[in-house]
């Protein structure tokens, strides 16, 4: 009993991925404990998206092992849907279903994949819409909402599947500056509720407030792992220092 609950939620070891000859991920080793919040940062093209997309197999890795909640995730495996239901994902570009109302975007997953009744799913969905403070928009279509509102809906949609872990791929980088705070607030609240989270972001304030660990990637490898305090004040590697100085210059 205790053993399973102490076991890390995500276990990655020796993970490698190539696009043709190009090595996108090389020898990634990383565990994420239950309730832990990990922020991944690094230069553009360093493999951050590829790494978190391997976790729910939007990208297939070629080497290494990957376990989610103790279950091995293999490329091309049968039953990947079961694992994906436990792993919520929020994309940079929201990817809401534009032909459905906000409420239907949220209800579809639980009804079709969790076998929930429509009434129950609606209740659940409205609950999460309250949580992301957007319940009054339930009947609208996504294109009618602002970017920040859409991203909050996308978070609620992922939460409706009642996942064990949430992955965020630069959730605020497509947003206008005035929209960012609202989305980060929602994510912080989620963190306080104890959700396990892996967040690719360059929002340093968020990382400092929320992250247990910062993982710095460059050229497909994990270069440095540290607490946010250590990482942002005294990075151990030159590459991280250089990256941070560039980040601050902007």
């Amino acid at each position, binding site marked *: 009993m205790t053993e399973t609950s102490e076991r890390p939620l995500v276990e990655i070891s020796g993970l490698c991925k190539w696009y043709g000859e190009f090595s996108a991920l090389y020898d990634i080793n990383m565990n994420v404990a239950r309730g832990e919040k990990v922020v991944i940062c690094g230069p553009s093209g360093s493999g951050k998206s590829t790494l978190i997309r391997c976790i729910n197999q939007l990208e297939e890795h070629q080497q290494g092992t990957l376990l989610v909640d103790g279950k091995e995730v293999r490329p091309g495996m049968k039953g990947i849907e079961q694992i994906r239901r436990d*792993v919520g994902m929020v994309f940079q570009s929201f990817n809401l279903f534009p032909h459905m109302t906000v409420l239907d975007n949220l209800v579809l997953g639980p009804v079709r994949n969790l076998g929930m009744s429509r009434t129950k799913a609606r209740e659940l969905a409205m609950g999460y819409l309250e949580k992301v403070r957007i319940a009054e928009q339930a009947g609208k279509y996504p294109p009618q909402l602002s970017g920040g509102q859409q991203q909050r809906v996308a978070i609620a949609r992922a939460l409706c599947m009642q996942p064990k872990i949430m992955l965020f791929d630069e959730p605020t980088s497509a947003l206008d500056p005035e929209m960012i705070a609202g989305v980060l607030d929602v994510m912080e609240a989620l963190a306080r509720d104890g959700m396990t989270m892996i967040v690719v972001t360059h929002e340093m304030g968020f990382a400092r407030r929320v992250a247990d660990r910062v993982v710095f990637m460059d050229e497909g490898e994990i270069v440095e792992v540290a607490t946010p305090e250590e990482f942002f004040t005294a990075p151990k590697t030159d590459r991280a220092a250089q990256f941070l100085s560039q980040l601050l210059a902007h």
Partner: protein
Amino acid sequence: MEQALSSARKAPPKGFDTGRMLSVFWQITKAGLVLAFLGWLIWRGIDAMDYRWQWFRVQPFFYRVIDGEIIWGPLVRGLIMTLQIASIAGVLAVLIGFVTALARMSGSFAGRIIATVYLEAIRNTPLLVQLFLVYFVLAPIIGLDRFWAGVLCLALFEGSFAAEIIRGGLRGVDRGQYEAADAVGMSTADKYRYIIIPQSLPLILPPLTGLLISTIKHSAIVSVIALAELTTQGLNLVSNTFMAFEVWFIVAGMYLALTVTLSFAVTLFEWYLNKSDR
């Protein structure tokens, strides 16, 4: 001042565009002149051939009244048969198109090979040869009658075009939509049913209705296996009455009426779809 400017901007230009109207009018006049000239040429040619028009004989081709009861003539029966063939073949073609398009996009190696072989075979052989193959070879083996042989052949032919149209539509849906559906753990069937196909319909429907209209025209080919559709009935009438000009004008006119009506209905439908989008 600022008020006046912004309210002036809101209003689209009103009033009658005389220049535009004149140019449209001139286009129509030009087209009319060309058509009139062509008509005159044909009429002169027929006149020179000394063709004896017998338009008074055509009415029974459509219907006869015997004892107060209407008996449909060969052309109406042919038209109905053409509609039957084209509509069944059209529905089958759309189904074949969806299956083929999904098979080509699927991860299944066997599915991709079968779909590709089917598409290449249909596209690189003459339709007439396909019809003979289905009618003389396939039909006896699997026990198809004339009607179903014709329908099946037509459906396979149009299906290959439908497959390309549908594949184009499915690929036109943003990759993020596929990923979002995958990320919430949807099954492949649900992903297409709820997310991808609904969003690709606006891309697929216009060319697909065009294809259904071609199916009506292409259905004439089954006259070579003597399936009693409109063209076959035309052929029979000509050989019985020697009224080639009257019959073929009428048959062409009937196809035209059918396809133009359908195009018009489709245009209305699209207009309605666009309107409800807003």
